[in-house]
């Protein structure tokens, strides 16, 4: 599976591993949408279910202190073939943009909104990139590692 992805995308796949049996491919940003479309439509891959989109902030991760700050993580599942795949796309802090997958799966809309909400990673081409769980006036992106857990937010609402 990973080998097929590698031959198809060439330099777009920078790394692969299967730690604990989870097949994982690390992609470049440009290769993401072609890779997702390939995984979804190729007859013997057929990853038709986009299970999850999330991100990881690698600010304090051993060995990643100087590398790209975030990874956007896609979990795919194939209902006909019963296999799973994880795709990771590293993103830098000063350019936190990933192309959107809303054109391939409608559910990507909300999942990407949540990643924007929690990590401040933008999705290029997303039709409606609002915060999902938090409110518009919220300052910062709470799942980033430099957001302190006890930080208070300014009060909003009508002034009395």
């Amino acid at each position: 599976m990973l080998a097929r992805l590698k031959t198809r995308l060439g330099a777009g796949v920078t790394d692969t591993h299967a730690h604990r049996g989870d097949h994982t491919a690390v992609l470049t940003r440009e290769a993401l949408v072609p890779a997702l479309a390939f995984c979804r439509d190729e007859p013997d891959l057929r990853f038709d279910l986009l299970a999850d989109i999330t991100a990881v902030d690698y600010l304090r991760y051993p060995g990643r202190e100087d590398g790209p700050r975030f990874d956007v993580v896609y979990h795919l599942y194939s209902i006909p073939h019963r296999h799973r795949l994880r795709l990771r796309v590293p993103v830098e802090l000063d350019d936190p943009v990933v192309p959107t997958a809303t054109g391939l799966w409608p559910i990507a809309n909300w999942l990407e909104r949540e990643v924007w909400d929690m990590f401040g990673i933008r999705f290029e081409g997303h039709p409606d990139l609002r915060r999902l769980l938090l409110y518009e006036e919220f300052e910062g992106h709470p799942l980033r590692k430099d957001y302190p857990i006890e930080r208070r937010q300014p009060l909003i609402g009508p002034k009395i």
Partner: protein
Amino acid sequence: MTERSTTELFLGEGPGTSRGGQHLYVNMGPAHPAMHGIIRIFAELDGETVVKTDVEIGYLHRAFEKDCEVGPYNNAIPYTDRLNYVSPLINNFGYASAVEKLLGIDITDRCKYIRVIMSEISRVCDHLTCVGASAMELGAFTVFLYMIKAREFLWELVEEVTGARLTISYGRVGGVKADLPAGFDLKVKKAFGEVRQVLEEVHTLVTANRIFMDRMVGIGAMSGAESVAWGITGPLLRAAGVNYDLRKAQPYWAYDRMQFEVPLGKNGDNFDRFLVRMAEMEQSMRIAEQGLEGLPGGSIQVDWEGKAIDPAAYVDRGKQGKTEGLLLVPIQLSPNLQGQGRDAQRRVNADDKKVVLPPKETAYGSIEGLMNHFMLVMDGYGIRPPVGEAYFPVEGANGELGFYVVSDGTDRPYRVRCRPPCLPPVAALPRMIEGQMIADIIPTFGSVNMIGGELDR
């Protein structure tokens, strides 16, 4: 000014008044009597027809994922209780299994069976709540009362095992908190008898009921292909005829040893979702019964009379230095309050000193056990999985419940992500209700079974 008819005077301008269409905006929620759960649906109406909706969630957000990063691995267990608070056991075990996968350890057979049995009991509780509540919203209050009564019997079983009804915190990385209590299989048999009777009654009350069917058949329908594209899993997807059940597709724990059917619907509407849930409850009870039958080691009927001693007396003996032979003496513990003794520990917990707390006899009675205990609870020690990441999905009551855990090699999870099974159906809710009547929002929303705890995390 032209003369106005009485109708126009009362209704003003709008559709049906021949004065041009005007849409009405209705805000349902966040606290609406017919919405169980805090969610806002902002609907644009043309007469009674829903034209467009915007669903707003997040009112129950409490930073589950951020909180998990703060404490050691086992500290996240109580937080997972509060994800799907109707079937908390499944969340517990799902998270524990994700960490076990990351650690690369295997749990005992008996523990696998216990997880299966308790998960299935939780699934029945969840479906009972969902079906009961959505029937109540359609006026069938009796169904709600009957089903809550049935759930009560099951929650008594849960209480028996875990010591709590809702916030159970029963799962542990590497095992469970304690073994099943003595005589549990008989109690399960009795409770399931009651549940089966209630299901029978509910079928008689609503399954062919004209009012119920008028509100459910053909409402909120989604095709199988569309459901997959929206990422919907669980009963909603199976109601649309797609055969995807993780317990069959990628069996985990002991599900590969169980005989059961996956009920499938055809039309993917509210009525099929109701039927699938009703059928799944029967299958879940079947699995739990098989689990109890095949439970490795059998149901516990051990009588400790004359053999065990009180834990307080045990500690005293240890403190006085009378440790000779102490390690061989079993102690009597209440499984749902104090944890478990050595024998039970061996049965249900993985044999890995780096993950599972030592049995109380060892911790109280020997210096090695005490050190082992402290090494697992001290700040900076504890469970330390190797650097890596793992995703472990389980079949939750609402669909695929996945935990994605990233470890940086320390005693705290670097990142915990919960894949909430009810987020995709809620995201697809506008698609299900647009073009239908405003009254159809209620049964559709009921059939989605939104659980605020896992939706907003």
